């Protein structure tokens, strides 16, 4: 019947913290790539809204150039928020979130793996697309590098912060608005320093300090957000 005959009493749990993290990362990435519509949605939203902007406010290059840093950042933030609700939902519904919570390795790493993949399929493409949209909105040439770098750092923080909100609301049926209410205030510092960096670069000032603060937010978020999200997942599972 079974290929194994040894008694189970001398069972020792497999220690697989690193291997477990890598396996999780791989399957998350696989899942994300198979749901290509979920990757395309935030990107399409990003491009469409910014393409419509000149139609709304008029095609004057000076006006667009003034709006560009703020608009690109706000729309990138909303695009991230859009994709955040489904972060834990599928796993919650099929029971694999509960399996993760029961696993011997800390839930922290599982959350970190999921957030990393979320950033890889939303934040990273948004940052890569941003120079193109900067060009559409007539962003002054000094702003491109800072726009790219600030989005690269900032969207990772947004993914981490959003994971906490997603974990808190995963047990609720219609969580969209509540998630936005929880997460939006926490997004504000990232938005302020992100647009600040781009604006400083456009105006010809040094934007290193703003990037440094974004990096600090990311470092703090990496340490704390998965912990908070793991706690929130345990609460969500307990009912």
């Amino acid at each position, binding site marked *: 019947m079974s290929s194994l005959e040894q008694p189970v009493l001398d069972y020792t749990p497999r220690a697989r913290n690193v291997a477990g993290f890598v396996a999780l990362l791989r399957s998350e990435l696989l899942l994300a790539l198979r749901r290509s519509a979920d990757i395309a949605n935030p990107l399409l939203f990003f491009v469409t809204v910014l393409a419509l902007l000149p139609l709304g406010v008029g095609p004057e290059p000076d006006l667009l150039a003034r709006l560009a840093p703020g608009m690109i950042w706000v729309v990138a933030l909303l695009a991230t928020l859009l994709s955040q609700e489904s972060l834990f939902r599928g*796993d919650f519904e*099929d029971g694999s979130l509960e399996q993760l919570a029961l696993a011997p390795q800390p839930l922290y790493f599982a959350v970190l793996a999921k957030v990393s993949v979320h950033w890889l399929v939303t934040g990273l493409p948004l940052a890569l697309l941003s120079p193109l949209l900067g060009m559409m909105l007539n962003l002054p040439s000094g702003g491109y590098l800072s726009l790219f770098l600030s989005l690269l750092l900032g969207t990772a923080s947004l993914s981490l912060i959003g994971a906490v909100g997603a974990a808190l609301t995963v047990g609720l049926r219609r969580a969209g608005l509540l998630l936005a209410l929880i997460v939006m205030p926490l997004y504000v510092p990232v938005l302020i320093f992100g647009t600040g960096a781009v604006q400083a670069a456009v105006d010809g000032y040094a934007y290193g300090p703003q990037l440094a603060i974004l990096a600090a937010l990311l470092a703090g978020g990496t340490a704390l957000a998965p912990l908070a999200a793991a706690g929130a997942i345990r609460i969500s599972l307990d*009912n």
Partner: protein
Amino acid sequence: MARKSPSSNSLQVRQLSCERDGRVLFAGLDFELGAGQALQVEGANGAGKTTLLRTLIGSAGDFTGEIAWNERAFPAALPDLRAHLLYIGHGAGVRRGLTPLENLAWYGAGRGEAMRALEQVDLFGFEDSLCHQLSAGQNRRVALARLFLPGAPPLWILDEPLAALDVAGVSALQGQMACHLSRGGSILFTSHQPLALAGLRTLNLSEYATEEPEPLAEEGTDVFA
């Protein structure tokens, strides 16, 4: 883990009562599950079978009474219990966007062991199909394939493992459960179907209900919520 040589893994429950949404589901529950023993939990819909199982794995916090794993009380014993636990719940933990093989890899199985396990649950040839293309019974088999992996943990807690399984599936599962018991494992499961396992004890939760059962319309839903 702290215990190096657990000579007998055992789960003890004394005077346990569980509550859900302000309603006491059952009270005064006593049982012990030692190595090589199996216990089938029965009871009407809404009697609290799933709640009992989720309490025992530490996922549902509202209980009074005592639960002990290897003589150590909850919640201190929880990490050790979870390290020795294989739990398959209502949501089987099968990710629909992955293939059966990838699902088992997610649980840490190597390719060779996963293929052998899938063969034993009769999913040979389906290992590379996406799970959302498989039937409900086949998805159940993917979840149950974890029981066929070498190095499976000693304590199995299974919620309705027979749901959606066909006759051949039930007998394969029964065989694997008997094999697990003979190797000194323990199994706690809920089912409405009788299983032919040597030394199987049953526990009817309805006998521990504290109130008159409410009308069916109000019951039933909360356990699955």
